[in-house]
């Protein structure tokens, strides 16, 4: 049987809100990364010429370069977004929930 404290926290609307917000954000960002990476691999597997095409007439840089660098930079940016958001909002929510339910 779940403890009384567990039940109280489960009932806390702010806790439910926290789970909803954090799960939505976490899973959405996960899906973005999966799409970006496996999309990148799929293009390489099925249409190599797309990434071998220069970004503009007379250039040496191909679309593959910004795409590849883009995937790496994307992972860094999305991670930073999640961590910023979590440090700013989620931690505060957790603190408020625990303050209310554990201390009371």
């Amino acid at each position, binding site marked *: 049987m779940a403890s009384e404290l567990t039940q109280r926290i489960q009932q806390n609307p702010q806790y439910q809100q926290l789970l909803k917000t954090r799960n939505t954000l976490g899973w959405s960002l996960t899906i973005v*990364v999966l799409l970006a*990476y496996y999309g990148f691999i799929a293009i390489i597997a099925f249409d190599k*010429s797309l990434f071998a*095409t220069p970004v503009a007439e007379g*250039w040496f840089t191909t679309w593959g*370069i910004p795409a*590849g660098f883009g995937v790496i930079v994307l992972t*860094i940016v999305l*991670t930073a977004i999640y961590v910023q958001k979590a*440090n700013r909002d989620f931690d505060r929510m957790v603190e408020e929930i625990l303050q209310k339910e554990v201390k009371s």
Partner: protein
Amino acid sequence: MRVTEQRVSPQAKTLKTAGFSAVALLMAILPSLSWAAEAIGETQKQETNWVAIGMFVFFVLITLGITKWAASRTRSAADFYTAGGGITGFQNGLAIGGDYMSAASFLGISAMVMASGFDGLIYAIGFQVGWPIITFLIAERLRNLGRFTFADVIAYRFKQTPVRIFAAAGTLVVVAFYLIAQMVGAGQLIKLLFGLDYIYAVVIVGVLMMVYVLFGGMTATTWVQIVKACMLLGGATFMAFMVMLHYGFNPEKLFAAAIDVKKSTTTMGPGGFVSNPISGISLGMALMFGTAGLPHILMRFFTVPNAKEARKSVMWATTWIGYFYLLTFIIGFGAIVFVSKNPEFLDPNGALRGGANMAAVHLANAVGGNAFLGFMSAVAFATILAVVAGLTLSGASAVSHDIYASVIKKGKATSQEELRVSKITTIGLGIVAVLLGIAFEKQNVAFMVGLAFAIAASANFPALFLSILWKRCTTKGAVIGGFIGLISALTMTVLSPAVWEATLGFAKGSAPFPYSSPAIFSMPLAFICIWIFSMLDTGAQAKKEQEDFEDQKIRSETGLGASKASSH
């Protein structure tokens, strides 16, 4: 090996078949081996590189100083496993980078870029994309639920004995393959860079890693990894900077020069690396989810005081590792221009002196002279030391914390007893690693890192992931499904071209499992088996485990009751 020469010619590009990704995996993951082994004839006569040895001795002295300091702070089992939990997120991020960026990824990926251009970038990206997944789904929950090892997390609401045995098996198998690959790589690399005998190199690596872990535990390991990460990032930054400086920081000019040297159209676009979509995606899955199942990486999240610092760790780690892979790409292109056709770095056959993986090392010489070459050689050695120390610590923790303290002593071992067992295990692991390193000297062990990632993705990750997030998951499901993932990944790898043909020597094309990585099959298989065996498990124990899920969830989401940093 003459392949080196062929790889540069355009004709060879068209010859690449589905099997190529396996060859690429071999070539890039653990460089040296067959390649370096072939080249040793030329390099053995090379003079001992005193600058490199001097720099390396300097690094060793610093790390031994750190170990001495760390030893005074390593009194309890908690100190040994987690450095007392007092590492900051920023420090831990660098240490994770130091744990993860191996000599194989630095030398192997830059060599792959030099040989195949864009294909090297595809490979590097695979190593990067696991990090956001760890951030979004694993890091905080792992920190909130565990104490010393990832087994703590799976065992939170499950039966201790079977779960600990499974997690220890998953840890030790991954650590063993990863460690053998690193030891053999170290021996080959040091033989080339320093002109030392293979056996000395392996013994030096084994002894140093034992000293760090034995006396300094996680504190020393962490700081060795931090120092190494700074040296590697600093050295790689300097090399990439010098390359870009030469082209006025205009990538177009660098690419133009590289295309001019290569005379090949596929340098700037995908070559044969992902010629088979199943192999490509499978390898991608192994790298992505394997990263989230590597025991020595997961363990690092327990060195920080709370979930917030765990998040910061993984953010810094993602940033440094991503930056590092961008640098290796520039370094690889620099090597195309400055190294690949420079007679100074080629043997009479036109192959790279010291083997294909020496691209970055020769580039260091080209852009920074002999002193910088010595520095980068010392960095390569330091890199291996930091990685093997992390692996040894993780293996020792699996034995002392999961097997000894939890299974044998049923959780009743004192901190001192646990600490003693971890130290004995460290010595044992060190000796075994040196012996295996020597035994595998002439073997092709290049598949081993790929195998370690595949097993981490197919056994450790599914069990960890579902135990944290799925209420219905039970002990039986996690253990049986996890073991099935482990065994299937291992079996398919043995049947794949990298082992069946390249290591066991069966005829080319005879491998029963045709793909370069098993993850696309073994990982879903593990998930399905965990699901089936959990659903079939309806006993009283399973009921209790499901009821305990709510408590576990509150703790994983809020950190309520999570273990705190131990005070000093």
